[in-house]
């Protein structure tokens, strides 16, 4: 790789062992992918802070970097973690976990991370602009930034994102390069009656597309004229789970996909798939791992809930009570919870017996298995349902938002699955 003098100095340890380790990691990645040079990143969003995922190893590594003089050079926000610092007792989480999560966060904060604690950083002040380069952990956010903002970044693991935040640069490979961003497969959604397709249905569709295309960039046509941010998020966030998709062209929405031709870079589409109700239903079946009736916990918020989603949950729960044997967690960011409080939604959800959590991840870093009696978790997200059984060793039911809410009230899953 061709490094600038400044980058060479960093690699040689002139700025300390912390920046040196960061640069060594980035150069390694660059060599593997055949990158010619480093490019500056303007936005970073670091993951790896769920104590239940990254553990003591991450604390050791981050502390070594910090003590070696590493600091975040660019705007760097944080992904969710394994606890809610304010409500862990009500959630039934062990204090030990809270302590360990605090220890994990310490080096992030000392290096200058902005503790958004959310996978919706773009709703909270970390918004990469079209054509700029970002390094984000958390594949849902990275896919959104690529597909909706037209900013450029790869799906990557936490260490290389932390290294980019410290070095201020990342190797130029993959989706940083225009030629790698063109679509490969046309995905036609025009068979669907969009007026009856729910948010969770869109995530079921996204999951099917991810499973089918694996790593080929989709170009989606046949979307309704108005398509909300929540609908986009539910459609594209499961795509990276089954495979490695981290850019999805939504024709008419994605800046690089004003037309089908633009999305394919003037080339003919390689393949074409059509997604209808049958493909959609297959995701519900595939991601539901149990036929048992009892539901111990219902969670929303993979990715974190937006205000419209919290509103939908609150309006369903008005004057209702959640079953005493079932818990309900609505996961979002501190910012959005404050807003939902002012709008009265938090009070309604709490009066029904649920919790609106902050900072908490309800998928890969979730602590479900540490809550006494939780064996089956229901969620309205295909992305969440993909991660929950493996990460937490509990059963998952993937269903529609309203069916999940009804299960929280009944304590049992009675809808079809």
């Amino acid at each position, binding site marked *: 790789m061709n490094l600038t003098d400044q980058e060479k100095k960093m690699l040689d340890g002139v700025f300390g062992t912390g920046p040196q*380790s960061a640069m060594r*990691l980035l150069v390694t990645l660059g*060599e*593997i992918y055949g990158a010619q040079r480093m490019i500056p990143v303007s936005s970073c969003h670091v993951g790896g802070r769920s104590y239940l995922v990254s553990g*003591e*190893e991450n604390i050791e590594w981050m502390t070594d970097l910090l003590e070696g003089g590493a600091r975040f050079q660019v705007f760097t926000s944080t992904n969710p973690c394994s606890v809610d610092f304010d409500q862990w007792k009500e959630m039934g989480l062990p204090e030990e976990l809270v302590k360990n999560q605090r220890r994990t966060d310490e080096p992030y904060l000392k290096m200058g991370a902005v503790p958004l604690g959310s996978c919706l950083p773009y709703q909270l002040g970390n918004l990469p602009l079209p054509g700029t380069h970002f390094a984000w952990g958390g594949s849902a956010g990275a896919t959104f930034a690529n597909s909706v903002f037209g900013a450029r970044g790869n799906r990557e693991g*936490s260490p290389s994102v932390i290294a980019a935040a410290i070095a201020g640069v990342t190797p130029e490979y993959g989706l940083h390069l225009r030629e790698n961003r063109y679509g490969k497969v046309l995905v036609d959604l025009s068979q669907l009656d969009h007026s009856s397709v729910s948010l969770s249905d869109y995530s079921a569709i996204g999951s099917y597309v991810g499973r089918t295309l694996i790593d080929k960039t989709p170009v989606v046509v046949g979307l309704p004229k108005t398509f909300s941010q929540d609908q986009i998020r539910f459609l594209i966030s499961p795509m990276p789970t089954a495979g490695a998709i981290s850019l999805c062209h939504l024709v008419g929405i994605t800046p690089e996909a004003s037309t089908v031709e633009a999305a394919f870079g003037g080339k003919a589409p390689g393949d074409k798939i059509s997604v209808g109700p049958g493909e959609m239903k297959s995701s519900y079946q595939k991601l539901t791992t149990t036929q048992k009736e009892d539901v111990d916990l219902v969670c929303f918020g993979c990715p974190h809930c937006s205000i419209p989603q919290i509103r939908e949950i609150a309006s369903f729960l008005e004057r209702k009570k959640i079953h005493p044997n079932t818990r309900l967690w609505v996961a979002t960011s501190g910012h959005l919870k404050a807003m939902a409080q002012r709008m009265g939604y938090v009070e309604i959800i709490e009066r029904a017996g649920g919790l609106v959590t902050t900072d908490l991840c309800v998928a890969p870093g979730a602590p479900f298995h540490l809550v006494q009696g939780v064996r089956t978790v229901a969620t309205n997200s295909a992305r969440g349902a993909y991660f929950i059984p493996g990460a937490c060793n509990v059963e998952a039911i993937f269903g529609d938002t309203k069916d999940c809410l009804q299960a929280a009230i009944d304590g049992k899953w009675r809808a079809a699955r």
Partner: protein
Amino acid sequence: MKIVLHGRKIIGGMAEGEAVVTKEPVSFLGGVNPDKGIVVERGHEVEGQSITGKIFVFPHGKGSTAGPYIIYSMAKRKTAPKAMINVEAEPIIAVGAAMGNIPLIDRLDKNPLEVIATGDFVKIDGDKGIVEVTKLRT
């Protein structure tokens, strides 16, 4: 008998030791016990074998992107392999090797899974991408 192979440097450094070879991809997260340095993935070709202080030869990584943390932690606990040889390195193994500063070479001019056998003595010059194999049995 000595065989010299040439490949691509991913992480530099010198190392020598006994080889542990598997034809199956390796997941460090969940597949290797970092305290003991032993492969624990059920049904894996080298399940139960120690990779501590060895030259670990395998096709490439697999599994979670949290894998690099495990390699790093093994380096800190001195349970890591002395060096690694991959058919084709991918980011999980490479990032872990960079974090733990463990020499890593890939893309050798001959398939290392065929040339090197468990028990062979292997000398690595990571910076030059040179692997020298002394066969245990010829």
